[in-house]
């Protein structure tokens, strides 16, 4: 299955230094590269209470949005679209985009996180409108099967899996898989198809994307893990278990033994997008990944977007919200006075900057758990040699590997010959607890990751280590909210969705899983809330 988007997170502890990396001289035999990731300086400063300068200026806005990832940008995009001008979007890093950020080199642009968007269904009209605005969707955005710009639809060949020593087409294990297991796979796919067609009590799809426009998690599915659900339904085929687990690790950065069955099934049953010129499981993708979207959104905001701005204290008063913001570039703080506030940064981090957190949120936030991720981009001077019948695809997955495989960043290139290729390698650290994974991310040196990644990929491409000229690693400490059974069987998410006074949260966290469509939905919802009864606060 596809690697779903994971969204902006892990950046409260991030500094304004952007891609603060450290170049290393590689040990012999390893390609050079950088160990990248958010700098911890500002976060520590906040935690240690060493403080920030006092505010030297007061700025008044009707609406203040904190967080320039997919949700915050969507919120700003909708406000601007509705002709609203008095707002600001604050971004901690020096570039907006959150989990959808990207890099580039002479060969190609490449993603550092979220890198594709499944075709949005009729449940996501706002997202479709935005795609139409950006030229990715042509004609009527409300059509059942809209037409998409074909340069942005993933080119064929799309997916292959390395299993039992050979590449096969598609990711569902087929090559060398026993008939019995294939029957189970078939039964699972049929069961998914019927779940996909199921409606909830109000006539909406039981599983929809955004999930808020579908049915609520049912108790039977929410409280058990995806692994247990498979067993309960009589599925024991190892290849099916691998595939379903792959989906959970891919989309949620979480092992299927810790993923709620409701979320695990949503991955397969929650997409209803179709296109007049593509299959329904096709996706939109760009060399730079979803930053193709976030850059356009950021551009549309113009001056309303303020990068290098860190909110460090939030207070809610009868008159409005008072937010102290440190502007890293100017080394000073300003006070924003806003009628309404949208917290579009990772939900759990609000607790660090808002001493008097509304009580319904306080307990809920304590229960959120985030998954650590690692993304590497490998620049090769030529694509690895292919020996089988199945050519290099967009998404190339290794059966049973620790990583999720690699995506060819320049797959969408129209050129006949590129000057090499960039492979984006994804790995959720699901082997250990999230805290242990974060510890490893903090301590392991570049050579550790380079060795591990080259060993894993070198197993199927013996020439890959020799072809790799640069290997950069990005560490996401808090990449995605983990959709655990305890999260979905509690009232944490419903409580977080309720605004408290003048503050509303907007983040894919509110869905319980980190998808671009979810973030977009919550961003637009927050914008609508900001526009409601605007006069009351004016």
């Amino acid at each position, binding site marked *: 299955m596809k690697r779903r988007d994971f969204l902006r997170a892990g950046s409260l502890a991030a500094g304004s230094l952007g891609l603060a990396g450290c170049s290393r001289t590689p040990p012999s035999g390893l390609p050079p590269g950088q160990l990248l990731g958010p700098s911890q300086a500002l976060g520590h400063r906040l935690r240690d209470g060493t403080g920030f300068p006092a505010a030297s200026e007061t700025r008044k806005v009707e609406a203040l949005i904190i967080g320039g990832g997919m949700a915050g940008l969507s919120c700003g995009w909708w406000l601007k679209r509705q002709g609203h001008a008095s707002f600001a979007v604050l971004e901690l890093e020096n570039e907006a985009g959150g989990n959808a950020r990207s890099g580039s080199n002479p060969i190609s642009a490449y993603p550092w996180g979220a890198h594709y968007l499944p075709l949005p269904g009729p449940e996501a009209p706002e997202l479709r409108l935005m795609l139409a605005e950006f030229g990715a969707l042509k004609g009527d955005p409300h059509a059942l099967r809209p037409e998409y710009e*074909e*340069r942005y*639809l*993933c*080119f*064929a*060949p*799309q997916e292959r899996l390395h299993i039992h020593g050979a590449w096969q087409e598609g990711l569902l294990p087929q090559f060398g898989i026993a008939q019995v297991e294939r029957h189970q796979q078939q039964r699972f796919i049929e069961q998914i198809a019927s779940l996909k067609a199921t409606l909830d009590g109000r006539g909406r799809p039981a599983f929809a994307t955004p999930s808020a426009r579908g049915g609520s998690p049912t108790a039977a599915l929410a409280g058990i893990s995806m692994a247990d659900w498979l067993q309960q339904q009589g599925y024991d085929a190892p290849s099916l278990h691998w595939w379903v687990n792959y989906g959970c690790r891919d989309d949620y950065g979480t092992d299927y033994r810790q993923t709620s069955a409701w979320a695990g099934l949503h991955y397969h049953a929650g997409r209803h997008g179709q296109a007049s*010129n*593509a*299959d329904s499981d*096709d996706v939109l993708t760009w060399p730079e990944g979803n930053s193709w979207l976030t850059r356009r959104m950021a551009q549309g905001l113009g001056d309303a977007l303020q990068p290098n701005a860190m909110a460090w204290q939030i207070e809610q008063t009868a008159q409005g919200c008072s937010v102290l913001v440190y502007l890293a570039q100017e080394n000073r703080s300003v006070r924003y006075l806003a009628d309404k506030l949208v917290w579009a940064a990772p939900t759990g981090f609000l607790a660090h900057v808002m001493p008097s957190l509304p009580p319904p949120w306080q307990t809920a936030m304590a229960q959120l758990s985030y998954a650590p991720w690692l993304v590497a981009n490998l620049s090769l001077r030529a694509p690895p040699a292919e020996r089988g019948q199945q*050519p290099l695809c967009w998404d190339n997955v290794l059966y049973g590997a620790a990583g999720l495989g690699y995506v060819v960043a320049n797959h969408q290139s*129209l*050129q*006949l*010959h590129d000057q090499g290729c960039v492979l984006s390698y994804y790995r959720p650290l699901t082997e250990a607890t999230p805290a242990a994974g974060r510890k490893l991310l903090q301590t392991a040196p570049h050579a550790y990751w380079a060795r591990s990644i080259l060993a894993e990929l070198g197993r199927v491409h013996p020439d890959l280590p020799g072809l790799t000229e640069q290997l950069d690693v990005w560490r996401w400490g808090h990449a995605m909210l983990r959709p655990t059974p305890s999260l979905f069987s509690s009232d944490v998410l419903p409580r977080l969705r309720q605004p408290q006074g003048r503050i509303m949260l907007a983040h894919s966290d509110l869905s319980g899983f980190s998808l671009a469509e979810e973030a977009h939905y919550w961003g637009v919802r927050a914008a609508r809330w900001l526009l409601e009864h605007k006069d009351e606060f004016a």
Partner: protein
Amino acid sequence: MPYALLFSVFVVAACGLAYELVAAALSSYLVGDSVTQFSTVIGVYLSAMGVGSWLSRYFQRDLIGSFIRIELAVGLLGGFSAAALFFAFTWLSGPFLLLLYLLVFVIGMLVGLEIPLVMRLLEHRLQFKDLVSRVLSIDYLGALAVSLLFPLWLAPKLGMVRTALLFGLLNVLVALWTTWLFRHELVSRRVLWLQGGSALVLIVAGFAAADRLSSIAETALYEDRIVLAESTPYQRIVLTRWRDDVRLFLNNNLQFSARDEYRYHEALIHPGLASLPWAKRVLVLGGGDGLAIREILRYPQVESVTLVELDPAMPALFKQHPALRELNGDALNSPRVRIINTDAFRWLESQANAYDFIVVDFPDPTNFAVGKLYTNTFYRMAERALGARGRMVVQSTSPLYARQSYWTVVQTIESVGLQTRPYHALVPSFGEWGFILAGREPYTPPQRLPTGLRFINADTVPGLFNFPPDMARTPAEVNRLNNQLLVRTFEQEWKQVQR
């Protein structure tokens, strides 16, 4: 004595497996589909060994002499097996598989005879349980040795032809050694010495000629003398000449033969360009050989020809090489021609000019990279570069050998809103070949054509547009970047032609 025989069991087992691996590897290398090749070769080989073992019961007298002769036969057949297969493939394309399985069967049968005969030779020298345990374990050890040596050292370092000869040599040496060991027991030892000596000479001669054998076999893939071979970052360019025929190969695919290229290039250019008497600006995408441009330059009203060709080596070659300049009428050195070495797709994307006539002459869609140049997205961009009354011609594979592919291209061009007029011509070195004219206005075949053409004239042009039933239009889907249907269809259709 028993140990000597046991050692020969080791060698014999190693040789047996080696021939099997050589045959399987060579056939999958030449025919492709390695799973099928390995599986069928091993199957035939093992069953033939079974037949050989069964036949061993008919050997009653002179066991040693029989064993030696079998060794010599295996050595010669196996030793030359790789060379024979190579030559069979290049010169007898039809019965290659038949020859392969026949050879594998005969070698397998002879190898199958060896072990039972050795066991019977040792029958009175060892106890039965020792005999079985030693012979069989050494047999399997020999197989292990080769199975490791073959992929790690033999195949990469020696190549197939010499690997087979090496094991042939070992077989012959075993035969000679056995002759010496049993020299007192053998009746016809003179004859055997003579036979063994001749076999040794043959194999050694084969070794000496191995380099020439391989290169003869490889150049035989190109029938003619290679006059130029050049590897660029984009492709391998090979030019061959035999008498008055010059042929160009790109990545081993024939691009043209000087004998009939005029048919291809006249058919590509004139039905379209002759119908546009006002055409001044012409764009050629692909086709760095200048042969299409030679035809375009026959029109005095054409003011400029823009050639977009990815590989700078191609136009450079066709600008300089005397024989090639003669062939393309020195077209690439014409002041009317401008050459741009860049990627056609990317260039079109950033192109604002309008052209009266666009020639799209790309290689066939044999892989996903080239396949992008046959998608609706590409034709949409080409359409944007087309003047209001302009026309485009697309080389589009064979409507006879790749019928579905051809009509897929037609369907794809129509999907971007252009009217098409498909046509075809016979080019002997390619076969029946297809082209597609596309434009916004209906097409009328030209009444007048340039003088000096050898294939096209005003009378024959209308006939090009008739498609007999075996090439007639079939329903097809649009080829898109996100499905690349054409590459899959083309591969399937072409595979059937080659069978």
